[in-house]
């Protein structure tokens, strides 16, 4: 019996994923009424160098640029992207996200963020925690800050895809972001995607053009054609509007609180 236990411990250490609890479980199994003791079929047990019969904990790497577009407006050359990716298995993944804009409504040269998160899958959603770095220009100079992030991403009833996150900056400023999109199939390859994104904050942070309360709303309509699933050029229109304190700050910087931008881009993933 001792040998069997040693055997079992050794296998667990190598983590072959084969249920070695079987060995002890078997030795303990008794069927009521029979009084007989089962013996573990130890010579059928898998050996240390055997592969797994199935590799169901493979890791994959996924990157999606859901928004990757060029938005001409007068002399401005505005680029916008919303990229995310993950690496991992079915339940545990490392997430990477980046959202950004060049030549923003509020006259910054760029406004970009990067997130690195750990995500755990709960039936339809990934709960994500991690860090975010936000960088933009303010009055010609670069400003950067870091946040802790906790977020939820997934598919809600009626097939809306949501992405929500709460940010707490290293200065203790709390803000949040919420995105909701849905894909409507016009044909098998022509897909219409409305997209709504909003930001809100508790504290006013002037350097980051963030006012108190609701900051802005971005409503976009994009029509893409999936030449391949992974490669879909699209055209769209985006309405941006800033509110309350944020609107004041935008005006202060000489920017537009209301924007209509036409966009052409490509949605790709691999």
């Amino acid at each position: 019996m001792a040998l069997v236990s040693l055997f079992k411990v050794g296998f667990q250490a190598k983590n072959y994923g084969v249920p070695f609890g079987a060995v002890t479980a078997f030795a303990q199994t008794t069927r009521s009424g029979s009084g007989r003791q089962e013996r573990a079929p130890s010579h059928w047990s898998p050996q240390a160098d055997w592969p797994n019969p199935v590799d169901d904990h493979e890791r994959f790497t996924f990157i999606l640029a859901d928004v990757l577009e060029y938005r001409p407006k007068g002399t401005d050359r505005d680029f916008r992207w919303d990229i995310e990716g993950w690496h991992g298995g079915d339940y545990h993944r490392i997430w990477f996200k980046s959202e950004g804009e060049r030549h923003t409504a509020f006259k910054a040269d760029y406004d970009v963020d990067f997130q690195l998160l750990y995500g755990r899958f709960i039936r339809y959603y990934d709960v994500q925690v991690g860090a975010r770095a936000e960088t933009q220009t303010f009055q010609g100079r670069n400003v950067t800050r870091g946040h802790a992030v906790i977020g939820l991403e997934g598919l809600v009833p009626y097939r809306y895809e949501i992405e929500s996150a709460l940010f707490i900056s290293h200065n203790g400023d709390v803000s949040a972001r919420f995105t909701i999109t849905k894909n409507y199939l016009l044909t098998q390859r022509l897909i219409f995607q409305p997209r709504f994104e909003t930001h809100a904050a508790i504290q006013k942070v002037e350097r980051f053009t963030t006012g108190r309360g609701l900051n802005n709303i971005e409503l976009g309509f994009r029509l893409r054609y999936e030449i391949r699933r992974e490669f879909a050029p699209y055209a769209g229109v985006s309405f941006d509007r800033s509110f309350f304190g944020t609107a004041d700050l935008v005006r202060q910087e000489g920017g537009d609180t209301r924007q209509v931008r036409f966009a052409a881009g490509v949605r790709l993933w691999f």
Partner: protein
Amino acid sequence: MSGKEDEMKTDLISRRQLLKSAGAFGMLALLERLAPAYAWASAADAALIPQLTGNVIDLTLAETPFRVGDRTGTAMTINGTVPGPLVRLREGGEVTLRVTNRLKEVSSIHWHGLLVPPDMDGVPGVSFGGIRPGKTFTYRFPLKQSGTYWFHSHSGGQEQSGVYAPMIIDPIAPDPVKYDREHVVVLSDWSFASPMEIMDKLKKQAGYFNFQRRTMQEFLSDAKKNGWRRTFDDYRMWSRMRMDPTDFADVTGRAYTYLMNGLSPAANWTGLFRLGERVRLRFIDSGAMSIFDVRIPGLKMTVVQADGQNVQPVEVDEFRISAAETYDVIVEPKEDRAYTIFAESIDRSGYARGTLAPRPGMSAEIPARRPRPLRTMDEMGMSMEGMGMKGMEMDGMDHGNMQMPGMRHGQEMEEIPNTHGEDDRSDRTANDPQRAQIPGSAPVKHGPDTHGPGNQMTPEITRGRLDEPGAGLGGDGRRVLTYTDLKSLHPYPDRREPQREIEIHITGHMERFIWSFDGKKYSEAKEPIHFRYGERLRWTFVNDTMMEHPLHLHGMFMELENGAGKHLPRKHTINLKPAERLSVAITAGAPGRWAFHCHLLFHMEAGMFRVVEVSEPEARP
């Protein structure tokens, strides 16, 4: 060690043996066997299924160029062909099969449906360590059964890449099935994309291969046909559940060319016959992810064997064959013309096709393709009373309109012409007395256990559906084989009532492509499933998903409790329908560790796999 020399030897032995057994098959069949197959088959692109027989058989696994249509890919093959060679053996003897692995990765061969010692079963990690590249593994086991079987790799995606082949074991006793000629019909799915590529896509986008989803265009035409309110309610209901009613096949005809004996529909595999002959067709579904609906327009088929086990003959127009199942049918062509053997995939995204003809070079019309089926609320396990849907009648006629003709609903409303005087589908209502005899077939509400995050949904109700032909079948005047039609030819010896009952739930998450049993992938299952040697137990399968799953148990047969009393059929693979519960009786007669899994390859690889451990027989003092 083995090599060409032995291969030559087995070929010669085969001819001698064939000459001896000429009487059993008739001169014509013998001549066909001696002449190269291409002389009898279609002129275009003939695939030769070579035959091997004898006591010692050599099989080599290697990468081989494989042409489908005008494109050449690389297949993994047994002895150079897709499918591999037909291995023909005789019950009662012992066979030695030497498998040499010339691939660059570990491989294996599993003898599907064969009762073999556990270390000969060929599942890496369960039976043995696999066959390393360059090595030869010698399988040796007695042949305790007869019938049509097949064999395939049990390593990774190799089965998808071409490592599959048919096997026939001839009975010692005179074959109860009388026939003049036979053909093996291996149905399979071929993709130029590698299995890893396919799995990659499935994990990243649900419905990647599904180009039959419901679109705005379809919504508008449905609304015009059925009314705006009803259409809106229907689309909204599916959307609310985050389910796709067009989800029938994870990998579809978009990725696959469906093959019949290794030939594409255009290449048209042809099997010959002479007028007046009884022809036995041995259908094997070697598809990795494919379920086919098989029919031969103009010919009735008499099913005589299922999964290698003789059944009482039942005449049908069509049958559904799921991955890993086999069906032997007898046809008697009466006209001097070609007949199309048509195997349409379950989601109607493609078909495999061949011809049965009196002379080579003939072909018949390919039947009209059927419309894409749709899942019903019934298949989702929605309880009918709890529906409360206003303006949404659930009777068959309306659903017939809504979801295209041919969509069968739980309660059959249409008249079906009954030309055979046998039981008709319209008789199989909920009041069918036969249903009452099937244990556990009455609707059962799902318990509170939702099986964890890896399981997308639990149906409210699961019930027996053995008498249903399946989604997308029926309602078109054709008699389709159902599991309740299968009755073993002779009762099997162990007729004890099951001594204990266990239940297993088939679970999964379609969006994330996680597949499991009881919510746990194989790597998360802490223990194997224990059977005690010699016991007779009832195993109830409950399908909590909305897709079909062909469940396969190695090492032992499962007796399907389909109400046939003493004549329960034995199967090695059972196709479980969405929201179905069924029971099998198993005599745990084979000690050792045995694989149990869904035979849809990517489901198995995603985690729908378990080990069944049968304890040793007790040592007698």
